[in-house]
C-alpha cells in the first residue's frame, strides 16, 4: 500500500525528477506528505525513503531537524504563540499562559479532539502586531486574551477555513517547473559568464592581468 495518493505520487515523482541528485527532493517530498496527512507519519517517511533511494532514518534525520515538519501527529490547527522580545514586552508570555488555559494543553500539546496543537515560537517577524500568534503559519495580532478566544472559536467553527487551511497545506510546495536543465548546459553557461566577466574586468583594468 502506497502512502501517497495516486495524485500525490505523481507529483512526488515530478519533484524527484527536478534534481540531478534525487535526494535533493527530500524536503519538498516531506511537505507534500505533510500536506496530505497533516504530519509526517512513519509510513510517509518510509515511502519517501524508497522514492529517493535512502534510508527512512535519513528522512527522519532531516524531517526532525526542521520545526515546520512534524514527525508526531499534530492538530488540524497548529497555533504558535510568539514569546520573543517584542511580543514578550507586549505580553506574549501571558498570552501563551492564557492560550494554554483556553485550549487545556501545555505548549507542545494537542487537544483531545485533535483540533489544536499549541506551540511556543521564536520571532515570526510580526513584531508590529505584538503580541502575535500564528495558526498554520498565518499571522494574527495583536491579540488580547479575548481576541485569542474568539480566534479559537472561529477556527473551531470553521469560520476561517478559507484563509487558514488545515495544517500541512502549503501553497508553494509544488510548482510547475519546466523539465530539468541538463547540467552540461548549466556548466557551459557558467563558464561563458565567467569568461565574460573576466574579459570585462580585463578591459576595465588592463594592468591587473585578468585578476579580480
Amino acid at each position: 500500500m502506497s502512502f501517497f495518493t495516486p495524485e500525490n505520487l505523481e507529483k512526488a515523482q515530478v519533484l524527484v525528477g527536478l534534481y540531478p541528485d534525487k535526494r535533493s527532493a527530500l524536503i519538498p517530498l516531506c511537505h507534500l506528505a505533510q500536506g496530505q496527512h497533516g504530519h509526517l507519519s512513519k509510513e510517509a517517511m518510509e515511502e519517501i525513503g524508497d522514492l529517493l533511494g535512502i534510508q527512512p532514518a535519513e528522512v527522519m534525520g532531516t524531517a526532525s531537524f526542521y520545526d515546520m515538519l512534524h514527525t508526531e501527529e499534530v492538530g488540524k490547527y497548529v497555533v504558535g504563540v510568539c514569546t520573543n522580545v517584542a511580543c514578550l514586552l507586549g505580553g506574549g508570555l501571558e498570552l501563551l499562559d492564557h492560550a494554554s488555559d483556553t485550549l487545556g494543553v501545555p505548549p507542545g500539546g494537542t487537544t483531545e479532539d485533535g483540533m489544536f496543537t499549541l506551540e511556543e515560537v521564536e520571532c515570526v517577524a510580526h513584531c508590529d502586531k505584538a503580541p502575535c500568534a500564528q495558526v498554520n503559519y498565518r499571522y494574527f495580532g495583536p491579540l488580547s486574551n479575548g481576541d485569542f478566544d474568539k480566534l479559537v472559536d472561529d477556527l473551531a467553527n470553521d469560520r476561517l477555513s478559507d484563509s487558514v487551511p488545515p495544517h500541512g497545506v502549503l501553497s508553494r510546495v509544488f510548482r510547475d517547473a519546466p523539465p530539468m536543465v541538463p547540467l552540461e548546459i548549466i556548466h557551459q553557461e557558467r563558464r561563458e559568464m565567467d569568461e565574460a566577466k573576466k574579459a570585462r574586468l580585463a578591459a576595465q583594468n588592463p594592468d591587473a592581468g585578468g585578476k579580480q
Partner: protein
Amino acid sequence: MSTDVSQNLITISIDGRQIQAKSGELLIEAAEKAGVFIPRFCFHNRLPQVGMCRMCLVEVKGPRGFSLQPSCYLPVNEGMEVVTESEKVKKAQDGVLEFLLINHPLDCPTCDKGGECPLQDQTLAYGPGESRFIEEKRHWEKPIAISELVYLDRERCIQCDRCTRFADVVAGDALIEFFGRGDHTEVNVFPERPFSSYFSGNTVQICPVGALTATPYRFKARPWDLSQVESSCTTCSMGCRMMVQSSQNEVMRYLGLDSDAVNHGWLCDKGRFGFEAINSPERLTAPLIRKGGEFVETTWASALSLIGSKVSEVRGAGGAGRIGFILGSRLTNEDIYAWVKLAKGVIGTDSVDFQLGDGLRGEVIASLPRATLNEAVSAKAVLAFTGDIKEEIPVLFLRLRDAVRSGKTKMVTIGTRASSLDKLSEVSASVTVDQLQLLAKGLLHEGSKFAEIAAVLSKQGVGSDGEGLVVLLGRENLAWDQSVVEAFAVELSRALPKAKFLVTLRASNFSGSTDLGGSPGLLPGRTRLEDASPALRQKWVVLPSQVGRGVKEMFKGALQGELDLLFVIGSDPRQDFIDTELAGAALDRVGFVVSVDTFLSATSERADLVLPAAAFAEKSGTTTNLEGRVFTLNQKVTPPGVCRSDWTIASEIALELGEDLGFGSPAEILDEIAEVSLIHWGLSFDRLTRTATVDGMVVPISATALAIRPRALLDQVSTPGIASVWNQGLASSKTAYVEGEESEEAREVTGTPQSLSTKVLGAPIWPLASVQPTGNLALEYSRKLYSQGEHLKNSPHLSRLIVEAKCRVSPRTAKELGVETGGFVRISDKAGGGAVFEVETDDSVRNGAVEIVRGSFFISGFSPVRADETVNYVKVERA
C-alpha cells in the same frame, strides 16, 4: 582522509619548529606525524572530516594574524605557521570540553568506556577541572538496544558524527542518524528499523565516548584488566588484522587494527563478536572414543596409539590410498603443513582436500595469476563472478565500495541473482551456464550479448589481453557445480592472459591450503607431486605414488567401500558438504572416522574418535588471506582441558608411526615451509613479527616487501581500546607504535623465486554436458553472513542472528505456484527428499528460479544440491 594529497613535500612551522609535510595533507595528520598530538573527537583517519567537535582548534597565521582554526579541516600549505600550545588554544580546548561535558552524565564508573575513553583522557589533559553548569542535564532513556549487538546511550553522546558517518559513508547502511536539532539532537534508529548492519560493531570501536557499547562486552572488563596480542581474524578469507584482548584467560573482545593493505581498521560483526565461541562451555576438552555407541573420555596416549595402529593396519591391508584427510578453515599454515606432511610425507596418501564442494579445486586456484587486494581495488576494471561479497567476505565489500565510490576502479558483475555488488557495478548481467562459456571466450569482443560489459572494460582501458582487469572469482551460485566456474576461469585466463584473479572464496585460509599442498595432486609451494623440490624430498620420508582424491571422490569411494580411515580436521562435512546426503551416507560407510574439532559438530558427533583442538587465540602460527598475504596469529589464552594445537596432534601421530615430523614449534614449521616451498621463501616468524608492518607479507615475497617500512602511527583516539590497553603501566605516550628501525639484514635478501607452477592445469571441460532439468525451478543456492555453523551456534549473541529458513521466488513465479509471501511450498530434491519452506516474494529473484540460503536449514534426507549435477533444479510445489 584528505582527498588530494600529493607527494610534494612542503615545509610548515608548528610551534616554531620546521617540519616536512605532504602538500594537501590535513594539518592534524601532518602534526601527528611530526610528534605533535592535537586533541580530537570527531576526526578519524578513515572517515571524511566534518569539523564537528571543535576540539582540534589551533592557531594558524593568516593575513590578519593568528586565528583559531580546526586542524582536522585544514590542508597544509607551504609556509603555514601553526601554534598548538598557546594560551588561546588552551582556552579554546578548555571551553570546548566544558561545552561537551555540559550534558555528559559523567557516569564513568558504570561505563564500559571508562579507562579507555578519549573524553575522559582529553578532559584530564586539556579540560577544566570543574563544571560551572548547575542546571539539570538533559535526559534520555538509557541504554536502548539499537540492534542485537549494540546498545546506545544518548546521554553520553557528544555528537561527533563518527558512528553516523561510518554507517553512511563506509558501510552504506545509514540506519543510524542524527534526529532533532540543537540541544535536542540525538543519534537514533528509525522506529522498528534496528541497526542491523553487518558492520555495526565498528561504531562501538570508534565511538570516542561510551554512547555506543557492544552487548557482548557489556560490563565484562576494564582496559587495565586486559592484555592484548595482534592477530588476524580467521572467520573468512579476508584475514582482517585485529587485537585480541583477554582478561583472566578469557577472550573479552576483538578490536580492528588499521592495516592499510587489508581492513583499514574495520571488522565485520561476525568476526568481531565470534570470540564468544572460544569461551563456550560446549567446547571439547578431552579426547572422546566411541565405546558401545556412546562417547567416553579417553587419554591422549590411548587415542594416539589407537590412531597409530589404525593407520598401520589400513596401510598394511589396502594401502595408504584408503586413508583420507579433510582439512578445515580453522587451521593455521603451520597446522596445514603438519597435517599435509603427515598425510603425504609420512603416511603416503595424496587424498587431502580442504574444500567441501563449495570452493574451487586447489590446482585451479594455484594456476590462476593472483591479484592482491590493492591491485583489485585500483584495477582499471573489476569483473565480479562471485558469491555475494557482502555476505561472504564483508570487509572486502567495504574495500570495494570505497574503491568504486572514490573512482579508483569500475566494476561489472555477472551472475544469476541480485547481489550487494550490483549497486557498485556499472553493469550487472544475468548469465546462464551456456552464456558463461561464450562470455569466457569472447568477453572483450564486439557484438556479444555482453556488449555493455565489454564497453565498460574498453572505456576503462582494459587491454585486449586483459591487462588491467582483475576478476573476482568465487562461487556465485552453489547450485552450479564448481567445474562450471573452474572451466570459466581457465578459459577466461587463456583468453585474457594478462588478467589477474582474486579468488574470493569464503573459507578462511583456503589460500594457505592451496599454497601448502592441502589439495590432491599438490605439494607445498603450489607444485605438483612430480615436481617436488630437492629440499622437500630431503625433508619428507615418502611422497604419494599417485594423485589422490578430492572430498567428493573420497565420499564416492567411501560408498564403494574404498575408504577405511578418514581424518576430518576442523570441518563438518555432514552439515557443510554441498551434498549433505552424499556426505552423510559416505561417512556412515567409512571404517573409522577421526574428527579433530573444537565442538561436537554433526560430523564429530558420529565419529569414532574425537580429538579436542585448540581454537583461534589459543595457538600461534600464521594464516594466509585470499590474496596470499601471510600474517601472524598469536596465542592469547590457554586452551580448555587438554586441547592441543593441530600441528602437535599431527606430530604425535607421526611419532606413533615411528617418524619424526622434525619440528617443535610453529616457528620451526614456518622455517621448514620456507625451506621446502619456493613461494614461501624468505618467510620467518622473526620477519613477520619484528620487521614486517602490521600488513603482513604477500607470498611470494618480493625483495621490496622485505625492506622495512615503518609501523603505522596509531592514533589513540581512532580506536581507543587498543591504545589504552597498550599504555597501561607505561609512561603516557602519544602514539602506541613507534617507527621501526631499518635492518641491514632484511635489505640483503634479494631476488625472487623462479620456477613457480603457474601453468594452467588441466584443460577446460567445455562443452559441458547438456543440462536436463530435474525439477520445475532452477535452484539458486546462496550463502548469508549468518548462515549457521558450529562457531555461530556457540556464540550466544550471534546465534540470535542466524538466518531463517525461507525460500525466495519472484512474484510471477509465486503466482504460478499459487502462493504468496507467508505461504508455504514443499521443495524436493532429485532423490525425492524434501522439506517445507516459507515463501517470500522478491523482485530480485529471476522468474523460474527459487533461492534458498545454505546454512539456514539442516534437514535429514534433504539435500537440494547433488554432487553429480552440473546445474541443480528442484521440484517446488505448494504445500
